[in-house]
């Protein structure tokens, strides 16, 4: 094909744009940046590149990273907040300096603000753009959670890239490597493996796998358990929470000391009982052996899955702080006939990859990173099974469509439950969200054509659309947290506030106010029909006025006015909210009366494979 080379979008190198590379780790975080062809790591006030991912809210102040570590208050600080992203990062489980309940996402937001400020201090200029790395095996929700936290911190996330991919990018560029490489990335909380093919300027991920909840933290716990059992004859689980925490943190310090010394003596205190014990690497290896074996198993399975012979692979690249544990390379040598490359700094290489990629995104380059999605995506089918639409290790971006039809005569609505994971049953996979496509023209079963489109962008963020081919009615869903705001909407808010805000703090206030206002407007939009049904003409008029006023104020950057109008709208919808609760109740009762108490789970079939029903559960809507 006669293709013309794309012009480099950026002109001269003098005004090269800057983009921060952030490796937001479970245990440590690292930031780096390329400015005018020179790459540098960001140093904190103590001159350290490795910034512990610790946050301490105490007596009206916030402290971060190395500001905390030597202090006694270390034990009260929030650690391993990243681990919560694979669970409920929206849950308000922490308290900030003022005693307000906050979520893991908000804690991370504060940490991102700290990192951003550090960079600005280092460079003596504003920094808005960044590339953030995430574990390759992170699911949709975890990815969007990290992105939201960074957006709320006033950072414009240019790309999310997978940690092992970032590592391979930096490694390949620096060492000018070619061939197939296996990246073994064992961090503080996550384990990833990726198989990549490196050729001239091209970094192509062949396949990836891992465990989002396996890392150095788990070794600390296992080793603490082992020590208490062996020397104190106590079951670790019988200890109180504070004692456990102290031991795990102590165990972590011992582990780090073992990176340098094979054996040493140490006093250990459990429940006021102090013993001097010998700490040695053999015992430690024994304690964590099972987990190391599972990393080997995951590696073997990945190689088996992709049909790549071990002799076709140049070698293993070890990444992540926990890959320093010596028995890991021994175990790899035992199981694979391969070379081990440990000529990179396993703590820093990921951030470097992100910074280099960020620079290229903003300033143009011939290099290209091609990644895959780590987990399959699909929808729930009848009997609680998952029907895959995009399967794991599909290159991204990816767009896939599947056509479905109704199962019952006259069916007017279909409920879609979006899932991610590899298990057959949907309850074992992660639920990403659900939506209902309603107003389908009532037709005999099997006639309507409903096209479901899964679109996975280059950040690995999923957007789902379902469309009734006849009426053209469609419904969109992007993976959301409770605030109900699309990531693309959020990105736009961040972008506009970067252009207009007076300073950093003002910028974040604008973002916060606008995100809140937009989510509220979305919420109102989604219940518009109910408002028209339940409210008096006068109430409807007032609500519409307040909506219009709020919409108007979002165009400005005056957060006081935005917040004021959110309150106004909130007040004007109070009586509606009450009526809606009552109505919901009556609908439920009617529903049960007309259909009986058994839940009505209807099914629909995949259009293309009628002989093999892929049933899905569908909710028949009440006719109003």
């Amino acid at each position, binding site marked *: 094909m006669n293709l*013309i080379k794309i012009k480099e979008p*950026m002109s001269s190198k003098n005004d090269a744009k800057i983009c921060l590379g952030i490796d937001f780790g479970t245990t440590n975080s690292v930031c780096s940046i390329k400015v005018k062809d020179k790459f540098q790591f960001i140093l904190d006030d103590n001159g350290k590149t490795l910034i512990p991912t610790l946050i301490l809210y105490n007596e009206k102040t916030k402290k971060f990273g190395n500001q905390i570590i030597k202090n006694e208050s270390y034990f009260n600080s929030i650690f391993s907040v990243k681990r919560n992203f694979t669970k409920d990062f929206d849950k308000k489980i922490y308290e900030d300096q003022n005693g307000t309940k906050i979520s893991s996402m908000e804690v991370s937001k504060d940490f991102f603000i700290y990192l951003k400020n550090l960079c600005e201090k280092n460079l003596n200029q504003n920094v808005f753009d960044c590339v953030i790395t995430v574990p390759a095996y992170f699911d949709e929700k975890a990815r969007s959670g990290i992105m939201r936290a960074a957006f709320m911190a006033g950072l414009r996330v240019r790309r999310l890239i997978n940690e092992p991919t970032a590592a391979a990018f930096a490694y390949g560029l620096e060492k000018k490597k070619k061939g197939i490489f296996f990246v073994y990335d064992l961090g503080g909380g996550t384990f990833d493996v990726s198989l990549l093919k490196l*050729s001239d300027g091209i970094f192509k991920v062949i396949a990836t796998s891992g465990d989002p909840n396996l890392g150095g933290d788990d070794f600390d716990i296992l080793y603490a358990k082992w020590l208490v059992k062996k020397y104190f004859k106590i079951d670790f689980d019988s200890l109180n929470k504070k004692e456990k925490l102290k031991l795990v943190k102590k165990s972590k310090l011992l582990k780090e000391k073992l990176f340098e010394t094979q054996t040493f003596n140490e006093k250990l205190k459990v429940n006021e009982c102090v013993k001097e014990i010998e700490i040695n690497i053999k015992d430690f290896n024994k304690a964590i052996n099972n987990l190391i074996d599972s990393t080997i198993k995951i590696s073997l399975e990945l190689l*088996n899955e992709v049909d790549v012979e071990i002799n076709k692979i140049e070698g293993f690249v070890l990444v992540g702080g926990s890959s320093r544990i010596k028995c890991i390379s021994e175990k790899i040598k035992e199981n694979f006939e391969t070379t081990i490359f440990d000529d990179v700094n396993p703590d820093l290489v990921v951030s470097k990859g992100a910074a280099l990629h960020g620079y290229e995104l903003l300033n143009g380059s011939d290099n*290209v990173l091609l990644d895959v999605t780590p987990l399959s995506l699909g929808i729930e089918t009848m009997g609680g099974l998952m029907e895959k639409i995009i399967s794991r290790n599909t*290159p991204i971006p990816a767009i896939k469509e599947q056509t479905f039809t109704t199962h019952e005569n006259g069916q007017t609505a279909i409920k879609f439950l979006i899932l991610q994971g590899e298990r057959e049953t949907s309850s074992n996979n992660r639920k990403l969200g659900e939506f209902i496509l309603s107003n389908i023209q009532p037709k005999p079963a099997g006639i309507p054509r409903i096209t479901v489109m899964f679109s996975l962008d*280059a950040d690995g963020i999923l957007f789902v659309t379902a469309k009734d081919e006849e009426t053209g009615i469609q419904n969109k869903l992007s993976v959301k947290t409770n605030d109900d705001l699309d990531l693309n909407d959020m990105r736009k808010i961040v972008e506009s506030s970067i252009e207009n805000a007076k300073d950093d703090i003002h910028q974040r206030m604008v973002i916060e106010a606008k995100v809140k206002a937009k989510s509220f407007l979305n919420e109102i939009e989604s219940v518009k029909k109910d408002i028209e049904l339940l409210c008096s003409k006068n109430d409807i008029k007032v609500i519409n006025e307040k909506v219009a006023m709020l919409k108007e104020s979002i165009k400005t950057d005056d957060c006081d006015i935005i917040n004021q109008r959110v309150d106004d709208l909130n007040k004007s919808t109070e009586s509606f909210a009450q009526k809606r609760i009552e109505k919901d109740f009556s609908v439920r009762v009617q529903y049960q009366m007309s259909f009986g108490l058994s839940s009505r789970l209807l099914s629909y079939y995949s259009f293309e494979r009628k002989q093999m029903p892929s049933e899905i559960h569908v909710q028949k809507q009440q006719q109003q």
Partner: protein
Amino acid sequence: MSVNSICWNCGNDIPPNLFLCQKCNKIQPPKQVDEFKLMGISETFDLDLDELEKAYLKLQQLFHPDKYSQLSDQEIKYSTLLSSMINEAYQKLNSSISRATILLKLNGFNPHSEDKSFNDPGVLEEIMDIQNEFLEAESSEQKKLSIQKLNLKISETMENLSISFKNKEYAIANKLNVKLSYLEKIRIDFKKQL
């Protein structure tokens, strides 16, 4: 199908298999084009997979969204769509089975309409024999031996498939392709059980 489109930016004529305007260099919206044309490679079953990969990487170097992150929303959208199309076309052409399916369709043969191989007793028996041999194998050595046999059968089928495409015998090619997809399924099953 081979009609020119018009550049959304400058109004210049765009040939059907191009996605960049030759005049203003802007990325164009995706259009209906078959996988071979999209990749810019010749329409044959006997693909050089290295060539395919080269063509694929070259296209991604041009159209991956990373190259457009600074440009307008519209261009970002086009690049995401195009890059997805390129990804899918590459995956499809990279597998012999879906490549054969594409070729059959391009030659006006609807692969699904003549799914007769289900009833082909010869093929069915052949497949059953392989499966039984694997299941009855006692040692892992024996199992590996039966996988080797299966692999031999796969390459044999591939060769026949290639010949039937060369002779433009599409009904035969379709049957062979169905057989190939069964053999491939068994191979993946066997691998899991090793």
